[in-house]
């Protein structure tokens, strides 16, 4: 496991030096702009707008990073052949994968934490006070991070067996499909046969249900999030990501590196 840690630490260093974290500057500017404008155009819902805008930005920026850099984790190393020297060392391929994954997930944790701080600053500057219910925003951010961790796993899976472009396409596709997984489950169209309905239901369970992690609506209006949901979502993310990573490891273990 030491190898996993070494690879992860190097992946984190790469992200920092690749100036990925500069996206935080953009986010900070966005929050500042929002805090200034929100007072003019949305009387009575300043809190709601800042929180929902902030969470949406954290989510979207995070997804960008998770998809593009997640796909690059493996494909960049294969394209540029930086991988070759490493795999000739006494390190297993799955350790390499896990290390890359861990490094990006930690980078995302740092990134979303920093953005959460920015969000709180914007919120405070608009409300001039923070009360107990505002801490739910942290819960929402945590759930967003879980979602991102799952997306990184998917990105890595796809990049193990297709081109980077297709991997990005597939990952975004699964993200969007995953948001509608619940609708698929409850779809009641008139002309669907029983088998089709059952089939769709099965698919709806197989797809990663990203709506699980979405509490932006509740948090924007200072409503709480039940602790059980947080635990269940954590377990779901860990389990699903583990499955995906296992698949990646299996595919990558026998992949011929040109």
């Amino acid at each position, binding site marked *: 496991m030491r190898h996993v840690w070494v690879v992860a630490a190097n992946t984190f*260093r*790469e992200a920092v030096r690749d100036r990925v974290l500069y996206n935080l500057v953009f986010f900070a500017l966005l929050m500042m702009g929002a805090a200034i404008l929100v007072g003019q155009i949305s009387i009575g819902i300043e809190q709601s707008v800042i929180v929902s805008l902030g969470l949406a930005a954290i989510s979207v920026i995070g997804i960008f990073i998770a998809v593009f850099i997640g796909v690059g984790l493996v494909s960049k190393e294969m394209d540029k052949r*930086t991988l*070759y020297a*490493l795999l000739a060392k006494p390190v297993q391929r799955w350790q390499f994968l896990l290390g890359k994954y861990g490094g990006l997930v930690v980078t995302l944790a740092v990134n979303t934490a920093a953005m959460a701080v920015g969000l709180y600053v914007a919120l405070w500057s608009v409300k001039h006070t923070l009360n107990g219910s505002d801490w739910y925003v942290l819960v929402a951010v945590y759930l967003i991070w879980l979602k991102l961790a799952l997306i990184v796993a998917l990105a890595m899976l796809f990049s193990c067996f297709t081109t980077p472009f297709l991997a990005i396409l597939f990952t975004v596709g699964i993200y969007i499909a995953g948001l509608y997984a619940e609708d698929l489950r409850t779809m009641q169209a008139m002309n669907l046969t029983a088998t089709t309905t059952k089939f769709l239901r099965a698919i709806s369970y197989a797809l990663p249900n990203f709506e699980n992690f979405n509490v932006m609506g509740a948090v924007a209006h200072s409503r709480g999030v039940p602790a059980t949901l947080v635990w269940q979502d954590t377990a779901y993310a860990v389990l699903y990501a583990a499955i995906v990573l296992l698949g990646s490891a299996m595919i990558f273990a026998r992949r011929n590196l040109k």
Partner: protein
Amino acid sequence: MQVQCGEVFGFLGPNGAGKSTTIKLLMRLIFPTSGTARILGKSIEDVSMHQNIGYLPEQPYFYDYLTAAELLDYFARIHGLKAPERSARVERMLKKVGLDTAKKIQLRKYSKGMLQRAGLAQAILHDPEVVVLDEPMSGLDPLGRREVRDIILELKKEGRTVLFSTHILADAEMLCDRVGVIVGGKLRGVGTPGEMVGIQVQGMEILFEWHGTQAFPLLERAAKTGERYRAQLPESEVYHALDELKAAEARILSVAQVKPTLEDFFMNLVDADRAQANAVEVSGQ
């Protein structure tokens, strides 16, 4: 094919012959459809065995956001070297390959030769018994090639086994104890460089200069470049030729043995292959 302990083995072949493929198979970067291989007595599937192997990939490229020192440190950690020994070892390696002054510069700024040297450094960083180098001289200027040659000889002196692939025959002739020749994906022969080409001498070559007007028989067998002539003849005829030249008052520049080189051996193999391919085409199969 077997590589003996402590020898420098050259893996020769034209581009596309399969040298890199074979090496990558050994390193488990690609997987064979059949066959087995063993290194240091262990199956190549044994990952822990890699602790004792060093590998320099073809056209190496490393994380360009790292400096050479950081890169070596990273690999040293992978090898499990502990902190104090790690930094000492990294320093030593950098000095050995001559990257000491550039160790704080990011790899993205390195020239090809410097990258090659960094690659060498990471290949021997962990003191491996076996060193596998894929085209270590490629892209280097003569000075760089000489440096790499020196390092390979040093490795041999240290008692390590070196396997390297190249298509530059001169390097192979100079460095290798034995060579394996691979053409068209097949191994064509293994042996010392001398064995491969056969020791037979093909004859003598006389190089001379002549400004006269009266032709003599040897001229017909000589190739002319400006005022210089080059004639090839069997050893038995050399004295007769020298007499002719003496009579013609030609100036003799050199008399030397003509030995086939690995290049000839090569070209023969390649031509034979091509002929076979054409024959197949012609017969319509």
